[in-house]
Structures are given as structure tokens and as C-alpha cells.
């Protein structure tokens, strides 16, 4: 291994604890992931059918040091080698965010390192830089996860404009709720994706919701209700539902809307490149549809590997690097901001 602590190199130690993953990573010069440690709490929350904020916060505090120490160890560096500390400070669950923010501030303070607060969605977008070294702004990006559905115009590093967002449920949330209703359990995204492969996506026509005021906004609660209504009607009529068909038809309805909005944005804003990010970006149906639609329009399409789609700290390290070199610094009064908006500080 070549020397990794060249004086010119910028090494970011990144910490992420916004939801139910306790994560730390070391990222070199914004593009090279030296370590990416994730402790997933998913098994704990499966018992409750969703993330329980207090349980998530309690688990974060138990695991945080272990995850950070392992990230440093696997990267083959010590805290001394680190240039700056980056941490997710919003959006997310406030109690969960506070664990990462408090620990990051204490480490930055005690080790005398600069601190950079990072927006969680910015992290997701930046996950695309890890495996696509040639990708640079400007481009369009769809961020879809359990908590977020955003259509974003990436103007430059650290410069974003939200052109569409969900009016109600996030895409991933709709997956979770529908999965629960058809008995697949939590987490819904991967489970629906899997059974969809055996189903007919055109078996049932579920609505593709449009939001009148902004063509780029999403609404998934109507779709969720349509699925629930369909299930109720089947039950009343004594019709046995075909789970793979319901899953595939629901997934297609979500994917169609996401792709359609994105393609419209590509046309209006003239994007030459388009990326997807967030937990739902690892959905195979979504990827295939985007690959197809982008290829047709000769648009370069990017997506992170599944490990960089779910919540992770490597993406926070990448975003933190670009904020760091732009001169962004956070003070010791950095607070968790659960409703933090993209592009705001």
C-alpha cells in the first residue's frame, strides 16, 4: 500500500447517525474511501415494524466509539493523520443525530481538528462521486430513501437547488407501508423488490399521482391508499391476492412516476448527466428503468453501489471534503437540525 498520509492529502473522518445506522468512514481527497464501517440496527427495529427513535438513539451511543475506532483502524490511520471531522447534523431523528454531532464535536475539540457539519441528503448525492471518478457537477439527481424524495439540480459542489419533493410520504416510506400491508414485513424496499421479480407489473393498475402546483413534486400517500383499498376490496369479495403481482404493480407505479418526473427535469434543465441516490436507489426495478430511459435520451446515468445507497459515513466524508475545501467550518455550538433543508446552513 502506498503512503496514505501524504502531507498534501486531505483525510476526512466522517460520522453519520441520522437514523438507524451508526457509521464512520475515512475518505481521502473526497473520492477514495479508505474505510466504511456501518453498524445497522435493522434487526432491533424490525420487532416494531419501523425505526423507534429512542431505541435508535440508545444504540448509537453504545456503538459510536467502536465504529469510529474501526474506521480509523481499517483505513490504517490514526486521529493525528486526519485533516478534519465531518458529521451529519440534519435532517434526521434529533436524538439520533445528537449522538454523532456531540461525539464529532468532542473529537474535533480534543484533537484540535476542524469540524464540518454535513447535510444528509448532500451526502447521498455525493455517494455518486465515490465510484464515478469522472462525475462532476452540473447534473440532475433523484434522492429517494425511507425519509426523503427529492429531485435536485446539482449546480456545483455544495450548490443545490431542489426542484421537486414529496408532498406527503417519502418513496421508501410507501414501500414500507405497502410491504407491511401485504405481509412482507420490514424493511419494505428490498422485500418488495425481491418478490416483484416474480410478479406481473401490469396486473393491477395503480394511480400515478400528479401534483398540480409543481410538476416535479411527488405524492405517494394516494398510491399507498389505492393499494390498501385494493387489498380491502379483494378481502371483501373473497379474492385471494397474488402478492408478487401487487408488489410488482405497486413498484412499477412508483418507478414510473420517479422516472417520468426525472426525464421531464432532464428536458427542461438540459442535464447531460443524471444520478440517483438514497436507499431506494438500490431498487433493481428503479435502476433498470432509469438505465433504459437515460440510454434512450443519450444521458449519462450514474448510481452508487448498494453499500453507498443506504445510510453510510463514506458519503458524508465525500460531501464533507468538498465543503471543507470550500472553507466551510462548523463551531462547537453545532446543533442537530432535524428538519434541515438542503442548501441551508
Amino acid at each position, binding site marked *: 500500500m502506498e503512503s496514505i498520509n501524504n502531507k498534501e492529502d486531505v483525510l476526512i473522518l466522517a460520522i453519520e447517525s441520522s*437514523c438507524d445506522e451508526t457509521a464512520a468512514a475515512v475518505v481521502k481527497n473526497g473520492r477514495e474511501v479508505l474505510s466504511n464501517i456501518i453498524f445497522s440496527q435493522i434487526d432491533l427495529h424490525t*420487532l*416494531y*415494524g*419501523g*425505526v*423507534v427513535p*429512542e*431505541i435508535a*438513539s*440508545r444504540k448509537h*451511543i*453504545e456503538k*459510536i*466509539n*467502536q465504529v*469510529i*475506532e474501526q474506521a480509523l483502524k481499517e483505513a490504517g490511520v490514526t*486521529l493525528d493523520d486526519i485533516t478534519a471531522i465531518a458529521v451529519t447534523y440534519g435532517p434526521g*431523528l*434529533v*436524538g439520533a443525530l*445528537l*449522538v*454523532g*454531532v*456531540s*461525539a*464529532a*464535536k*468532542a*473529537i474535533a*475539540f*480534543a*484533537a484540535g481538528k476542524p469540524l464540518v457539519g454535513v447535510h444528509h441528503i448532500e451526502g447521498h448525492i455525493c455517494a455518486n462521486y465515490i465510484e464515478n471518478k469522472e462525475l462532476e457537477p452540473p447534473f440532475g439527481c433523484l434522492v429517494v430513501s*425511507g*425519509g426523503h424524495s427529492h429531485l435536485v439540480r446539482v449546480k456545483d459542489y455544495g450548490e443545490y437547488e431542489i426542484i421537486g419533493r414529496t408532498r406527503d410520504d*417519502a418513496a421508501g*416510506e410507501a414501500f*414500507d*407501508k405497502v410491504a*407491511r400491508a401485504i405481509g412482507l414485513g420490514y424493511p419494505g424496499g428490498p422485500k418488495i423488490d425481491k418478490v416483484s421479480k416474480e410478479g406481473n407489473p401490469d396486473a393491477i393498475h395503480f394511480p400515478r399521482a400528479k401534483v398540480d402546483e409543481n410538476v416535479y413534486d411527488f405524492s405517494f400517500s394516494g398510491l399507498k391508499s389505492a393499494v390498501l383499498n385494493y387489498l380491502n376490496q379483494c378481502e371483501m369479495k373473497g379474492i385471494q391476492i397474488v402478492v408478487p403481482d401487487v408488489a410488482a404493480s405497486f413498484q412499477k407505479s412508483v418507478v414510473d412516476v420517479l422516472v417520468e418526473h426525472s426525464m421531464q427535469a432532464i428536458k427542461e434543465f438540459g442535464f447531460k448527466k443524471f444520478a440517483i441516490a438514497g436507499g431506494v436507489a438500490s431498487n433493481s426495478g428503479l435502476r433498470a428503468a432509469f438505465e433504459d430511459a437515460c440510454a434512450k435520451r443519450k444521458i449519462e446515468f450514474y448510481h452508487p453501489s448498494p453499500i453507498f445507497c443506504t445510510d453510510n459515513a463514506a458519503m458524508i466524508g465525500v460531501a464533507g471534503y468538498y465543503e471543507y475545501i470550500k472553507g466551510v467550518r462548523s*463551531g*462547537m*455550538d*453545532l*446543533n*442537530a437540525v432535524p428538519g434541515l433543508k438542503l442548501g441551508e446552513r
Partner: protein
Amino acid sequence: MKILALDSSGLVASVAVLDGDTIQSEYTMNYKKTHSQTLLPMLEAVKELTNLDLSTIEAIAVAAGPGSFTGLRIGSATAKGLGLALNTPIISVPTLEGLAYIFYGSDKIICPIMDARRNQVYAGLYSFEKKGPIYEMTTIKGQCATDIDALLDEINKLDTDVMFLGDGVPVFEQTIKEKCKIGFSFAPAHMNRQRAGAVAAYGRVLYEAGKYESAAEHAPEYLRLSQAERERMEGIDTSCISVR
């Protein structure tokens, strides 16, 4: 030895540095601002004003619960971050023992109480016994979450006057006055809330008794399950919990 102490278990935010037998610095605030915005800036001020060399810190003492869940985590996560960066152990100081230690040497029974909501308090009962030239704090009733009435029933069986302190006092003052049958008093302003100085001094006692842990091991002691866990154990359907 040098101990850096933190307490953000309740409304008070407090930091202190103990150097040998003296508190070199102590910064305490009782102001409605989140600990996340005050604790580290206070520590920064203490470091700046006293030219504190952090590498001389040998242990971090933290009020480790009970208390506000979020407040405890801010304190513990801060302590863990400091411990990780400075490579020092953490002394978990039970919050109520830290409070009681403010009354070192008192001949009263010390009863710190913290408001735990739902008509409960976090409380403990402590006294000081003279052992040669020093006093040792002994636990009559270890810290727990209890109904205020049950606590007062227990106190009424004691034969020594009781000193109440803590943020539970303003909440239950009337109840105490009505139901406490033995001699009691309330602590004055400078001794009735969390003080990191006491956490540091008592932390040193614990440290010398070998009671400390690694920064990675440390976690707060909440004395209560989360609501979701409680309801699940009571057999209440929790499947309606919002996903995010």
C-alpha cells in the same frame, strides 16, 4: 490527577476540571438552551481561560444517569468523543450520587430528586459516615425511578432529618410539605442542582476504587426502558409506530 467532568443530565449544563485537590475551573449554567449548543462552547471557554492542556487529562467523569434521555446522551457522547481523542477512561458517575456528594460531610440524610414525569421522581437516599479524617458516602437507597408518595413513605420511616435537592423539588415541594412527617429542609440555590465540580470530586473517589470503564464501553444508565419497549413488554400493539 486531572479529571474533566461533565453534567448535562437535567436542565443544568456544567463542566469542571479537577486538578489534585482543587477544582481548577467550573462553569455551570441553568438556562433554557439545548446542551448541544452550550456544553462544548463552555468546555472551549474553560480550556481557553485556563490554558488547559487537554493531554494532561487522565479521566473523563460524566453524570451518567438517570436524567433527560437526550441530555444524558449529549453528555455521554461528548465524554466518549473526548475519551476517544484523548485516550482516557470514562468514570460513569450516577447522577444522584453526584448530586448527593455536594453535601459531603453532612449529618442529614441527603435525598436528591429529579422530576421523572408521570408523577415519578428519580431519587436516592444517601448519608455520610466518618472514617478517620474523611467521610464516606453510603447509599441508603440506590437511585431509582419511584412514585413520590412511595418515596415519602420510605423517608417517613427514617430517624434522621432529610435534605432535599434537585429539579424535582420545585415540582413536588407541596407534596413533600404535606406528606413528609420527619424533619426536612430544601437545599439553598448554590447547592440544589447538578455541579460538575461534585461529579469530578466524586468521580475521583470512584476512580480510586477502580470504578471506571473504557470510552467505547461507556453508555448512560437511563433507569427506564423506552416507551416502545415498555409497551411491547406490556403487550400493547406497537405496529402503529410511525416509520420515520
